[in-house]
């Protein structure tokens, strides 16, 4: 029943998209500057039925309707309600439906929120967006149908992978999707702007809120994913340069570049083609990421069930999309010549863009190189954190410096300010204090610390100055401040982290640096859909004589039968104590991973600040930068 309804609703929504494309083409030939009512009506129909089809799937999950294969394969009656709901997008088919819903929602919002814009521009945007929607609906209905029925209806489902049963992970995919699927709207708008020859300022004003909002969600999505990896995966880190993490970071670099260069477009009417290229690239990179993850050509914690037909479909779509964008771009792109004076704001923004593109290139090469090498030569390698850290870390120093000095410069002007100012002096002073406290010898880390302090102090001063002038650019200040803090705390975290792996039996003690870890007891317990073995540990800080109790768990889930290792983390304001245990089969020895990670909460908080800048930028559109 639900299965049929789902198929009918999504088919109606697909039909509405096709009609919209048809109506839009007809409308292009009609003069006048108003979009006819029926286009709005069809958009509304499309939106309603697309949302309804998602609701149907959601209902299927909530009420455990196993007549749909998708629910049968990914859910179970004993699963907590919250995870039944998040199960809807915890699999390929369901998440594709969510994808489409975001495409549709953005398409609808774009149409109703830009009532006064150039008509042809809106119509073309609608055409491109609906082409995307139709293609993905066809993909959904023909290849990855979440509503496929199963007969006879099974009594019980197979369950959701327990590592996905985590609150952070439940909300992580929707956030990221709003981020990178949201970028589709400026992809469509950029192509439409080229064809309908929209002028620079108007394009910038139209794109800006969409870029801010998708950038905000992308940042938060990455943050939540990181938090999940830290608490749930039990690897004791927050960023692993895993290919799938990289796929979410690559569009982020482009969005960040775009967020900055759209300002130049707005104020100076420069970088028109560049903004268009970035808009196209952002969504392209999002689809490349989706292709890498869904086709199964990458091996990662995220890999969906392997199905080459899926990969082939996304790849075909990608090829069509990229080549038609190139065609449109080369056919319609205006030629522009603008010289930028050194030490003007736009010059710094341009440099920021080159940094972002450089970071993107490094991450892209690191992600694709193993895939390419394996395919072309059969050799298997993996590119890990050392590569990224080695190449990217030194470039943080000039980036931090540019972030500090760029905003101080005015548009157009080329006057140079005094290089040695009070803020730099204060930063060096603060840095020296920190240096004598931590006594770190690594030059690179010291420089990064120095420049992050410089950025932090500069933004605080900026805030103060802005406050005096009653002209606060809160979004830039918040994001740059957050970024300075992030780099500062990551460095401190890197310097002070303690990590150790060892084997113990119950009742034994182990000394690690300033800590004594005692394995006190072992208990078994059972949860709703799992059984668990809980270890009782006492950690003594020898210096401060503080005791902490940690209880890592080994969980054995019944549906599907999976073992997970639950880290026990004692999170204080300044430091996290982290313990995971795994048993060595059929013995009484347990393998323990102990970590002391300072300032984790500050790292999360910094990223939150960075993303907050995006939302402030969204609500603060009229303010000057």
């Amino acid at each position, binding site marked *: 029943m639900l299965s049929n309804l789902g198929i009918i609703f999504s088919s109606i929504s697909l039909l509405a998209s096709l009609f919209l494309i048809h109506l839009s083409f007809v409308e292009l030939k009609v003069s006048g500057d108003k979009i006819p009512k029926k286009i709005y009506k069809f958009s509304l129909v499309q939106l309603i039925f697309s949302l309804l089809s998602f609701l149907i799937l959601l209902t299927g999950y909530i009420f455990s309707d196993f007549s749909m294969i998708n629910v049968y394969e990914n859910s179970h009656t004993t699963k907590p309600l919250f995870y039944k709901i998040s199960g809807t997008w915890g699999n390929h088919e369901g998440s594709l439906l969510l994808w489409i819903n975001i495409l549709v929602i953005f398409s609808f919002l774009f149409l109703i929120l830009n009532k006064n814009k150039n008509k042809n521009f809106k119509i073309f945007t609608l055409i491109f967006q609906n082409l995307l929607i139709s293609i993905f609906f066809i993909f959904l209905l023909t290849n990855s149908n979440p509503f496929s029925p199963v007969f006879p209806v099974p009594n019980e489902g197979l369950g959701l992978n327990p590592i996905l049963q985590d609150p952070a992970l439940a909300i992580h995919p929707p956030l990221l999707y709003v981020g990178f699927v949201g970028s589709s709207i400026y992809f469509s708008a950029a192509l439409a702007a080229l064809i309908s020859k929209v002028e620079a300022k108007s394009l910038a004003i139209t794109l800006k809120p969409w870029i801010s909002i998708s950038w905000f969600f992308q940042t938060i999505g990455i943050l939540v994913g990181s938090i999940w990896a830290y608490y749930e995966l039990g690897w004791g880190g927050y960023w692993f340069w895993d290919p799938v993490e990289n796929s979410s970071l690559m569009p982020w670099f482009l969005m960040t570049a775009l967020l900055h260069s759209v300002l130049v477009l707005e104020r100076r009417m420069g970088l028109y083609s560049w903004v268009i290229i970035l808009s196209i690239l952002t969504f392209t990179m999002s689809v490349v990421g989706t292709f890498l993850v869904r086709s199964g050509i990458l091996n990662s914690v995220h890999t969906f069930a*392997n199905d080459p037909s899926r990969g082939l479909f996304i790849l075909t779509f990608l090829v069509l999309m990229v*080549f038609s964008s190139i065609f449109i771009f080369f056919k319609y792109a205006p030629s522009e010549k603008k010289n930028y004076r050194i030490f003007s704001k736009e010059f710094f923004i341009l440099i920021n863009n080159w940094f972002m593109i450089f970071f993107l290139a490094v991450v892209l090469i690191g992600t694709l190189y193993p*895939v390419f090498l394996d395919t072309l030569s059969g050799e298997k390698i993996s590119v890990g954190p050392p590569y990224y850290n080695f190449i990217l870390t030194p470039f943080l120093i000039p980036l931090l410096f540019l972030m500090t000095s760029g905003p101080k410069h005015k548009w157009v002007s080329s006057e140079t300010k005094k290089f040695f100012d009070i803020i730099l002096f204060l930063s060096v002073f603060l840095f020296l204090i920190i240096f004598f406290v931590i006594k770190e010898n690594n030059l690179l880390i010291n420089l990064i610390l120095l420049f992050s302090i410089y950025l932090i102090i500069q933004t605080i001063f900026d805030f103060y100055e802005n406050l005096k002038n009653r002209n606060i650019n809160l979004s830039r200040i918040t994001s740059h401040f957050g970024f300075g803090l992030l780099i500062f705390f990551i460095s401190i975290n890197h310097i002070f982290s303690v990590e150790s792996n060892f084997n113990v039996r119950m009742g034994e003690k182990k000394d690690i640096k300033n800590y004594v870890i005692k394995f006190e007891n072992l208990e078994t317990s059972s949860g709703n859909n799992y059984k668990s073995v809980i270890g009782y540990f006492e950690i003594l800080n020898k210096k401060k004589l503080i005791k902490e109790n940690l209880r890592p768990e080994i969980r054995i889930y019944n549906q599907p039968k999976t073992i997970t290792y639950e880290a026990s983390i004692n999170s204080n304001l300044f430091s996290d104590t982290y313990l995971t245990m795994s048993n060595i089969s059929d013995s009484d020895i347990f393998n323990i991973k102990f970590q002391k990670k300072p300032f984790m909460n500050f790292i999360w908080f910094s990223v939150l600040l960075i993303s907050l800048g995006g939302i402030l930028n969204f609500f603060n559109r009229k303010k000057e930068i």
Partner: protein
Amino acid sequence: MKKIHLIIICIFLIFIFTTFYLSLDNKKIYNTEDMVGQKIDKVELTLFNNNKTFNTKEISNYKFTLFNFWASWCAPCRKEHKNLIKLSKNKNLKIIGVNFKDNKTQAKEFLQEMGDPFFILIKDPKGKQSVNFGVYGIPETILVNQDLEILKKYIGPLDIKDVNEIKKIVKQ
């Protein structure tokens, strides 16, 4: 100039997309269960006790051969051992043990304690030879006929059901 840019970009993209296309067929998940029905390679192995070589083509002398991959450090191997002892009494079947990434003394102690079901014992201290059989974790057991064709492959410890299945195949 514009055209040259366009051509370079297109060639580059075509290269990328072609590689993506090729990578779709590239199997990432290594599944040894596909090996059933295939023939095992004729490879030279080293005997456990005297370092002499044993070539797998010699097993065509026996009606059925069961390769068992084990180690003294592997707990499930301990569990399945009694089943191997049972099977070793079968006349149609020769069991070849492959001692996988193990310490020689501990392996000997294991066999002394638990009994020795192996007709021939092979050593593979680095686990490299076992790869020829598609083994990357233990215990694994492979049933091979006279033509060196793999009839059955068991991943994980053999249980009583598996023993009965092997007995049934060997009877025919």
